[in-house]
């Protein structure tokens, strides 16, 4: 190890209290930065992974107003529309309100084909897996009225542990049954999401099960579709198709508003305020304030090194040596803090996913974040070292030697 690095590292470990506290501050800042950015990127991943060939048609009045079932054939009839399916929010829970996961009522004949690129069926009836599983699940979904397809998270989470063939009772929050009981669903397929916006704890079931039950008086509610998900041809102009769909229902029982799936996903993000911006701002503010505290610590270190700078200059070292020593010291402190913060973020990743995975989706400290943390720490350390070191370039050795540093 060459002389400047060795001397700078000796300084890092010589003032344990000051540098220890600085390292701790950087550790916390980098951990928070990684954590907040992972949350933001998780949210963004959902929007980014939205299909460019899918539209969502909802009521122009509100998302909470359901569209009629009669709209689907008209949407299907649009040029460039390949397939459309109703999607209706169910909002029930399993055994306890704490065991909540999203459930949607979808079209029994269209849903599986519609999501070919979005998830991979990994298990079907009678334990079937592999390439044949999708067809088997599609067939079972079309045959069994109470059929449900679930994400693999509901199988793997010990709290649920749903398996193929299980009958799962879901207690309704909106569509109450006349007998006051739960809705029973039979698991016919398990999928693995291929897109970040699709959670792995989700359940899709047949909309006709819900609508027919309402129609026959077994359950309360309105026979309706919710919203429509509409797949369109690759390369077609989504805006023109969206406008065309909305034009069709201008004088219908419900006016519609058709947007891209990405815009629809963004709506949910913006519904809770501009969370990514908020979290990003918090992370930035933390980092900014830590930057000043690191600069302050390095300035104190610089003042203490003034005499050392004089000694080094008297021995024949150029003034830039002392500047360089402070930069290396700042970099070392920041990198140690950054590495610890990163280690903390990576170390707690599973814990965060386990405890908050349902609300913080796609949380991952990926290579991009690791690189960002390392580069941010490096810039922080180098800048702080520069702030403390630059004045050393203009000190004369006699001045520096007279100091008490």
């Amino acid at each position, binding site marked *: 190890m060459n*002389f400047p690095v060795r*001397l700078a590292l*000796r*300084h890092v470990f*010589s003032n344990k209290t000051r540098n220890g506290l600085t390292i701790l501050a950087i550790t916390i800042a980098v951990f928070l930065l990684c954590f907040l950015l992972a949350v933001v990127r998780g949210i963004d991943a959902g929007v980014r992974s939205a299909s460019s060939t899918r539209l969502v048609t909802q009521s122009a009045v509100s998302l909470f107003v359901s569209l009629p079932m009669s709209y689907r054939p008209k949407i299907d009839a649009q040029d460039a529309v390949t397939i459309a399916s109703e999607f209706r929010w169910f909002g029930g829970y399993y055994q306890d309100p704490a065991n909540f996961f999203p459930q949607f009522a979808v079209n029994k004949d269209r849903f599986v084909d519609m999501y070919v690129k979005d998830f991979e069926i990994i298990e079907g009836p009678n334990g079937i897996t592999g390439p044949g599983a999708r067809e088997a699940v599609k067939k079972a979904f079309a045959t069994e009225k109470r059929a449900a397809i679930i994400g693999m998270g509901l199988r793997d989470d010990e709290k649920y542990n749903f398996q193929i063939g299980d009958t799962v009772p879901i207690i309704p929050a909106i569509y109450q049954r006349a007998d006051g009981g739960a809705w029973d669903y039979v698991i016919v397929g398990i999928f693995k999401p291929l897109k970040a916006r699709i959670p792995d704890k989700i359940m899709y079931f047949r909309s006709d099960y819900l609508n027919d039950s309402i129609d026959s008086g077994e359950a309360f509610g309105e026979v309706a579709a919710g919203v429509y998900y509409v797949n369109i041809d690759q390369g077609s102009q989504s805006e023109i198709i969206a406008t065309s769909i909305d034009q069709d229902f201008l004088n219908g029982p419900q006016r519609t508003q058709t947007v891209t799936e990405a815009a629809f996903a963004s709506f949910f993000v913006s519904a809770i305020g501009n969370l990514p911006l908020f979290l990003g701002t918090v992370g930035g503010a933390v980092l900014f304030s830590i930057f000043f505290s690191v600069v302050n610590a390095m300035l104190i270190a610089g003042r203490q090194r003034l*005499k*050392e700078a*004089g*000694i*080094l*200059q*008297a*021995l*024949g*070292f*150029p*003034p830039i040596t002392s500047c360089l020593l402070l930069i290396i010291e700042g970099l070392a402190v920041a990198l140690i803090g950054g590495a610890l913060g990163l280690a903390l973020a990576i170390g707690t990743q599973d814990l965060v996913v386990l405890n908050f995975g349902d609300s913080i989706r796609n949380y991952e400290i990926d290579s991009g974040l690791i690189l960002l943390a390392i580069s941010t720490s490096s810039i922080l350390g180098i800048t702080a070292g520069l702030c403390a070191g630059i004045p050393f370039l203009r000190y*004369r*050795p*006699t001045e520096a*030697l007279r100091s008490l540093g």
Partner: protein
Amino acid sequence: MSHDSYIQLKSVSKKYSRGGEDLIVLDQLDLNIPDGDYAALMGPSGSGKTTILNLVGGLDVPDSGVVTVAETEVSSIPTRQLPAWRARHVGFVFQSFNLLPVLTAHENVMLPLQLTPLSAADRKKQADFALEIVGLSDRAGHRPSQLSGGQEQRVAIARAIATDPDVIIADEPTGDLDRNSADEILELLNRLNEELGKTILMVTHDPAAASNARRILKLDKGHLVSDEINRQASGQTQGEA
């Protein structure tokens, strides 16, 4: 290498500004010190002793006049090149030792050697040798805080001679030491001068320290007021020789 005037100051003036007023520290000073000499600079505070050391060591530049060391006009070396010149030609010994506390004695001695083109092994050898000369080989791994004042100053001397410079500049080298330690240091400086032929320029307030030098130069208000051969020290040397 031998020169009539190894260290020469010709009409050197230096002033500092303090509180808006110019304070003349050296006024048209002439000084000649031959190669291998051991000179003590004495005088009251503010007489310009340390300023002479700084000028000879290339730590400062005169306002006017010429400072020459070993035929090199130090006062005309560009500021950026002065550190490199210092590294090759001058070894400093300070009153307060000025060792780096985070480094061991050996590492402190190694410091100026970092600037030489020597290999790592040769640097180590040179540092070992310098510590051997000052009698501190057994303290090489100790940090300054683990050494006595006298030992610290001996390490500082080892550092000053590690690169085998022509001139050793000592600013009150015994000022912070008790009598016994001071005597050890003075004895060491004598050996460096007599055995290794180093030219030594030492500032001191202590007459006992000055009595070790071959010449005693007295300064007052920026002027050289006396330049005496110290017969006792010269006689010792001649006698020993």
